[in-house]
């Protein structure tokens, strides 16, 4: 997926449609899903703190990419769910995981030469996600435009429903 905005809107679409079906999934839970869509971006911390700097400090090999996969999504979602009131935790956890997973699945359609880095991040979903065809590259405008259009449509439908 080209950018984080598209991931956030994709999570909104996913969670909002679920919210239509389950009344307990209100707007706060939909927003939690949008937050979840940003969880795999934790791997982008390498921009602020390059891995070699961390490696030198810790004395062990280190790659931020490890925090962009499924396991990091599960752990960080659990961590995020702990920050909300007890009664909301399970729903927030589910929404965060759903948002994070939508990010990972959409990224699986990214055309990225070589799959060496993807297997570990996608594990154990790699047998399903790795064979997916690369249909865009990061930087393409059209996926964002398509998702924004779908997002606006869902928002309009939601407004009419309520």
């Amino acid at each position, binding site marked *: 997926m080209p950018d984080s905005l598209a991931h956030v809107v994709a999570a909104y679409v996913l969670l909002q449609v679920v919210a239509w079906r389950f009344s307990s999934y209100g707007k706060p839970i939909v927003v939690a899903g949008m937050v979840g869509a940003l969880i795999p971006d934790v791997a982008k911390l390498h921009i602020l703190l390059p891995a070699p700097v961390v490696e030198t400090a810790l004395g062990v090999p280190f790659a931020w990419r490890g925090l962009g996969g499924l396991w990091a999504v599960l752990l960080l979602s659990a961590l995020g769910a702990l920050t909300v009131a007890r009664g909301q935790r399970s729903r927030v956890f589910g929404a965060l995981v759903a948002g994070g997973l939508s990010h990972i699945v959409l990224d699986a359609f990214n055309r990225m*030469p070589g799959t060496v880095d993807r297997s570990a991040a996608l594990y154990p979903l790699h047998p399903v996600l790795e064979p997916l065809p690369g249909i865009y590259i990061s930087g393409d405008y059209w996926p964002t435009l398509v998702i924004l259009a779908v997002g606006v449509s869902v928002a309009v439908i939601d407004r009419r429903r309520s």
Partner: protein
Amino acid sequence: MLRRLGVACLLLALLVPLPIAAGVLTESRVTQQDVVADYESSVGSETRFWGRVVHSDPVTVELTATPSLRVRLEGIESAPPVGTRLVFYGTVEDGHVVSVSEYVIHHPTKRRVALVTSALAYPLVLFLWFRYWSVDRDDVAFVVRESR
């Protein structure tokens, strides 16, 4: 509260092995830096390369790296334009030749636009979060705003 802190610490501790495992995996493979540092020892290995194209003719590209990498590419249909960012995966061969199996060309303007739109996502989500959630100071937790 203490229990919550304990669970949070446990979750953070479980997170630590993930980037370390990814680092170990990376270390066990030949990387672009290895190829730049010692080309001859990397011959025969497969890896991913990336960098800004600073020189390009139909067969040779020079990528920014530390130091820069100049290789002849086999398997690329046309020369990538100078200034673009080239990502390719291929096999390192003798004589500074890489036989490319997959490649993509990123245009810098598109990348900048993607970065700007990416940056929009964070304040948007932050705004929405505090629109629907507030902080309960007694419980030290986010709670759904009354009106929502």
